[in-house]
């Protein structure tokens, strides 16, 4: 069955397949989603990501493609679930908190690129 969204494991596989399409030795390294055990990704964006990978990979001079996933808004607001587990293994009290996290912005990952083509979704 085809879904309207992409499963996280399929996303990783699609990036690898597209990056190695022209040369199976091209190394593909994906980072930034290590703490996600499961996720839904917008298929429209996944298809474009596969095209971007191919576009970079078809250059015979390319040996490796680094893919870094980071929030497009570099300060993200997170829910934190603080939950006590009792000695019998059942859940006791839980407190929900917020955390505002600012992470290094995209410039840190592309500042040394010889060419930059920004195809991100615009905010306005």
């Amino acid at each position, binding site marked *: 069955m085809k879904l309207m969204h992409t499963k996280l494991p399929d996303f990783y596989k699609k990036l690898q397949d597209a990056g190695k399409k022209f040369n199976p030795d091209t190394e593909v390294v994906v980072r930034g989603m290590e703490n996600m055990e499961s996720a839904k990704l917008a298929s429209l964006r996944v298809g474009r990501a596969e095209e971007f990978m191919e576009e970079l990979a078809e250059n015979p001079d390319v040996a490796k493609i680094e893919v870094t996933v980071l929030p497009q*808004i570099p*300060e993200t*607001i997170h829910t934190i679930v603080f939950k006590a587990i009792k000695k019998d293994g059942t859940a006791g009290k839980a407190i929900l908190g917020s955390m*505002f996290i600012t*992470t290094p*912005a995209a*410039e840190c990952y592309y*500042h040394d690129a010889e060419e930059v083509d920004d195809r991100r979704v615009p*905010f306005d």
Partner: protein
Amino acid sequence: MNKLKYKLIPQGAAEGRNPIHLIFVDKKDVVAAGLTYRQACEVIAKDFKEPSAINIIDMDAVTVSSDGIMVDYGIVAFASVDYGMINKDFGYLEVSEQPYSTKLLAEEPHMKQWDNIDAYKGKRLYRGPNFEDRWPRVPHNETQTITGRIANNNTGSEVMNVVDMTEVLIPAYGALEIMKDGEVLIGVAGPEISVGIGMVVFETYGRIFHRSYGAGLTAHNSGKYAKTVKSDYPAIAGPKRTLAEYTMRALEIGLVPGKDLGCSPAVLSIAKAMGKPIAFDNIEERAWIELESVGIRRADLEAPSTPMTREEILAKADEIVPGLTDGKLFKVADISEIRYAEC
């Protein structure tokens, strides 16, 4: 070709006490160069290339410290620059002027300073960016700019390199002295400033918060932990006599800490030294826990004492105003460089 003048306090300045490059620009120099504020930040980014915060300041304006004291300058734009770039969506923020209105003065009692202190009367007010300025940030996002490694937060007063995670605080009087080529007191913030930063006033589009916490409340609301949250960070502050001068101006027109002004350790200590009233019962219990954790006790403040004169307070400001560990005074001219960016 025009040149834009800017003042750099380099990383490592002040005997290694300043951990991050900081750039200050006078609004008049931006106007003289024929640039918009954003263009000014862009030409500096291209000229400097290193990770840095930029604050553009109007010295003919007024702003408000986090605890509600008016100061005569205003940050009109701020930015984060790195690798010669400014992040197109989050690297720059402009601060819209807040027009004078009776509604604003009625809602925000600390703003009586604007009307009642000659040095501030009729001057343009700049505090924090409004919702339109902040787009595409959402209301809960901090008032900060982010490019590469640099987050320039709380409208230009807290700068962090989020890669090596060094940070520096620039309290209101520190920025004032930097712009006036005066003196700055550089040290480690310590527990009193850590607590004091949370003792804010209710403001529409404040430098840190928008209509969130009123005088007498604690924004930190973290009990005994409030004294630790910012205590280890280097701070570039104004001399304590500068803080005392501006705080006394507010107290002299009848504003009351805990009701009209934030109940920070500095404001309470100066009010006590002057013998001015404090709204003890309006300071919430959670705020007293934080104050008492740094030795500001209600019983001591309520105890009878002989009021000091203005001159005595200025002379003894270093003893009266708590906060800042291992502080050392530096002339701004000795720790800064004037540079010019081609534009």
